[in-house]
């Protein structure tokens, strides 16, 4: 146990260095996914017919296994971090787009009408009314995306040691040091849970108007009526 943090030098990083690398490889894709899904979701809200095909496309992309995705990208981006990050960003879309669409749609009609009556243009209404109301749903989606992203990075080990904390797993095998594998799993899980808790905190800060510990999920669902069946899996997963 005293060698728990005594990492082999081939990792090229200290334990904290690996954590930093892991967070970067996991969080940047989620951020990229969020930046892409905000406009995509807005388009889906504006043009309703767009939503089912977009959902179908993200679901199909989600069905591409991470390892398969990585190895196909190797041909274009080499055995680099980018190869790990692109699939993670794509996977985050499948959770984030429905979460944002659902959240933005959950703004009550009266609220929107009130905003319009106060002289809000569409842009200001989006940023100051719809987006804040969507925050709980968006954060719920971000939580799922972030946690899965953090745990998926480890697979990057298989494509030329791009797995950050996952690289410890290979070293655990080749140096016969099981404590390194324990270190990898425990640290990754702890990172994921901490990131999840941080996002809950973000939601609490961003939504001071929400009573603590409410059943917001219920409300969001009934307000949007029932989305298409295709929308459900991710949505349910996201809106827990």
């Amino acid at each position: 146990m005293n060698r728990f943090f005594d990492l082999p030098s081939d990792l090229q990083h200290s334990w904290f260095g690996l954590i930093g690398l892991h967070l970067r490889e996991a969080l940047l894709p989620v951020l990229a996914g969020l930046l892409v899904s905000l406009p995509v979701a807005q388009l889906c809200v504006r043009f309703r017919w767009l939503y089912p095909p977009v959902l179908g496309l993200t679901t199909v992309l989600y069905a591409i296994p991470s390892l398969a995705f990585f190895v196909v990208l190797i041909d274009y981006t080499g055995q680099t971090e980018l190869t790990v990050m692109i699939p993670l960003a794509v996977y985050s879309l499948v959770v984030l787009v429905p979460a944002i669409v659902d959240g933005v749609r959950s703004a009550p009609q009266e609220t929107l009408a009130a905003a319009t009556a106060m002289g809000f243009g569409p842009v200001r209404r989006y940023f100051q009314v719809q987006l804040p109301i969507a925050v709980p749903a968006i954060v719920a989606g971000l939580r799922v995306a972030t946690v899965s992203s953090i745990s998926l990075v480890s697979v990057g080990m298989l494509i030329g040691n791009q797995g950050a904390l996952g690289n410890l797993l290979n070293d655990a095998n080749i140096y016969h040091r099981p404590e390194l594998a324990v270190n990898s799993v425990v640290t990754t899980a702890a990172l994921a849970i901490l990131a999840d808790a941080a996002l809950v905190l973000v939601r609490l800060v961003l939504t001071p108007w929400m009573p603590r510990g409410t059943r917001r999920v219920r409300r969001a669902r009934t307000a949007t009526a029932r989305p298409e069946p295709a929308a459900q899996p991710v949505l349910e997963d996201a809106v827990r």
Partner: protein
Amino acid sequence: MNVLNFVNAFFSDGAHWHGYDGIPTRLAEHIQYSLIALAIAAAVALPVGLVTGHYGRGGNALAFIATAGRALPSFGLLVLMVILVGFGMVPVMVPLVVLAVPPILVTTYEALRSVDPSPVDAARGMGMHESRILFRVELPVALPLILSGLRSAAIQIVSTATIAAYIGIGGLGRYIIDGLYQRDYEKVVGGATLVAVLALATLGLFWGAARVAVSPGVRRGA
């Protein structure tokens, strides 16, 4: 178009179609692992989700379990299990089941919670027993959602079962891992294509199952 050339080369090579390392063998192994893992996960998560969803209690506990399950890295768990338990099927099944339980559990719970309460009340008023309410009223209405939870679990299992090859178990991951070590890119891409196709087939299968199993009335209302 580089990748497509590799795919074509892999599938047109007759040697890949039979024998111990042939596509049929590996495909069968992969499907077998996936089915076992899905069956175990469903056997654990479905009853718990149905009961907690029916009574509407324990949502927070379920959310916590789901987060914990998601937080555990599948690949790390796999390697750790091999170190702890040794070579075999157990180290493969543990991460796959841990991976599949959260979506099934959460979706089943949410599916039952989102059932319109009025038919449930009506059923209770008619004197239906709780278990009959669950299976005759709530389950049919919640079925599309429950199936979608199973679907995302199944897709994740099929995708993740590839990593089993890292610890010397068969399945389609064999091609990817071996190909990477042998620097045989054709094999890698061929394996990746097979897994992706299998995952898409799973998607289609669940889509078809939902068509058949969900009552037309529920589908129309959805």
